[in-house]
């Protein structure tokens, strides 16, 4: 079952002007329910445009956006529902915070949904828990917080709408390793607890390799590759040519294979590489002992 499906999406900016710019040329992609999906492509590949199709911020020139089996543009008047059901976290979301306190800011989405006070409260606290924000931080002004904390408040603001599909555009951009781990940890907790679908847009191959189940690669407004991480990373040359590359560890495994070491082809995290090499080295050690 697909939580979100985009079919033959086409989109052109500034149509019929000298600045005309075709961003998407017939993109078809499906995101399976309950999984973490990666969407990669470098700047200008059309990924930011595609993301704004998902919750109806942009209307495709042609094609369909199917959210839980229904085209979101069937009833254009109810497009706001699509925004609540498919929550979108933009790049550098901390720049959208505006309320006096973090708590109020997180409540902005749920309030717009027209929920009652108790439900809003429940959601604010549960979202704060997902991203690991303490209760005393909730009473502070978002403008007093550190960069990483602000980012988590903004993320909680979208999570509090409890969307079926959570879309994040470069959630870890500009953060240091600690901040990155905190953000991805929060996303993972949300996804595991709610069983909801997550779509992560990124150009960090290391991050998508670690956190995503499937990958879709966009290039020049078209889908270049789509599949599991292992399937996509198999096309190392193509990805490198597109300015994306593969995780360092995947490249390293290829170097080993080229030198005659028989390592499995589907390795793209350090943990997996460690297990594989340990198996080989242990086997060799055992063989030598025998």
């Amino acid at each position, binding site marked *: 079952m697909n939580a979100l499906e985009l079919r033959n999406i086409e989109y052109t900016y500034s149509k019929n002007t000298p600045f005309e710019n075709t961003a998407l040329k017939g993109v078809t992609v499906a995101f399976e329910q309950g999984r973490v999906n990666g969407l990669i492509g470098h700047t200008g590949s059309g990924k930011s445009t595609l993301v704004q199709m998902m919750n109806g911020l942009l209307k495709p020139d042609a094609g369909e956006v199917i959210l839980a089996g229904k085209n979101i543009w069937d009833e254009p008047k109810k497009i706001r529902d699509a925004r609540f059901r498919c929550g*979108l976290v933009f790049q550098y979301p901390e720049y959208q915070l505006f309320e006096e306190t973090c708590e109020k800011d997180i409540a*902005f989405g749920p309030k717009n949904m027209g929920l009652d006070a108790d439900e809003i409260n429940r959601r604010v606290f549960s979202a704060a828990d997902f991203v690991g924000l303490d209760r005393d931080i909730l009473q502070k002004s978002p403008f007093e917080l550190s960069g990483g904390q602000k980012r988590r408040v903004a993320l909680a603001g979208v999570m509090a709408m409890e969307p079926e599909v959570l879309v994040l555009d470069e959630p870890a951009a500009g953060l240091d390793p600690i901040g990155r781990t905190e953000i991805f940890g929060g996303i993972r907790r949300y996804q595991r607890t709610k069983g909801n679908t997550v779509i992560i847009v990124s150009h960090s191959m290391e991050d998508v390799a670690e956190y995503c189940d499937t990958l879709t690669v966009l290039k020049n407004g078209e889908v270049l590759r789509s599949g599991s991480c292992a399937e996509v990373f198999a096309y190392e040359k193509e990805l490198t040519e597109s300015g994306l590359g593969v995780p360092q560890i995947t490249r390293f495994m290829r170097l080993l294979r080229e030198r005659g070491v028989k390592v499995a082809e589907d390795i793209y995290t350090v943990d997996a590489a460690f297990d594989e090499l340990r198996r080989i080295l242990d086997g060799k050690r055992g063989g030598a002992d025998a």
Partner: protein
Amino acid sequence: MLKDITLGQFFPGNSVLHRADPRMKIILAIIYIVFVFLAKNSAAYLLAVGFTVLLVLLSRIKLSVVLKGLKPLLFIMVFTAFFNIFWTKGETVPLFSYGIITIYREGLWFAAVMIIRVACILAGSSVILTYTTSPISLTDGIERLLKPLKVIHVPVHEFAMMMTIALRFIPTLIEETDKIMNAQKARGADFNSGGLVKRAKALLPVLIPLFASSFRRAGELATAMECRCYRGDNGRTRMTKLRYSGIDIVLLILFAAFGTGIILMNIHLGFFLNFGMVL
């Protein structure tokens, strides 16, 4: 989308008008506007229209582009022309009369004059200044033209620097507004329904982050400028030195001729060539 608004309206090129000194162009634009206003009779107006067409040709900007630039003001022109036609009382016999509607020849004349004047001034000053001068050299021109005012402590340099920075950041801020609006829409903000008060309130989630980020930008920019040794006008030189060239002199003569032409038409030829009144 907000991003689509074109700003500055500058069309890069290499025509005579593009190459002219911005200071000269500011002066020429003023001369031009003054004389178009001074035109009194149809011959003078004919000359003004002819001269404007000449300017458009000199700028090498397509006439269609210039006409398109007039479009936003078309409504106002038609509107005022309409009032002129129906509300001007003439001394002669009405041309047309039906019920309360009476149209005099003077009404038609004023309406035509109105439209010609506005169209000429808009088209002319656009090709002299905004279409052919980049915002930065325009600011530069203003700064250098007003330099003498520094003696009486008018902060000319600071004003020009503010203009430059504003021009530099307008596209950035528009893009940012777009982004914040989208981010708030993604959280269900609704900017398009409800009464005036509700709509104004709905803009708060956009305005507050926008102000916050503008302050942050301003702070960072100030630091960056200090790091690049900016200390106001003190001992500052400029890469491009503005120098009047032959083109400027030729243009000045051309505009002087135009001004003289208008005055001549007003005084002498007016008696013989007053088409409007003959009509």
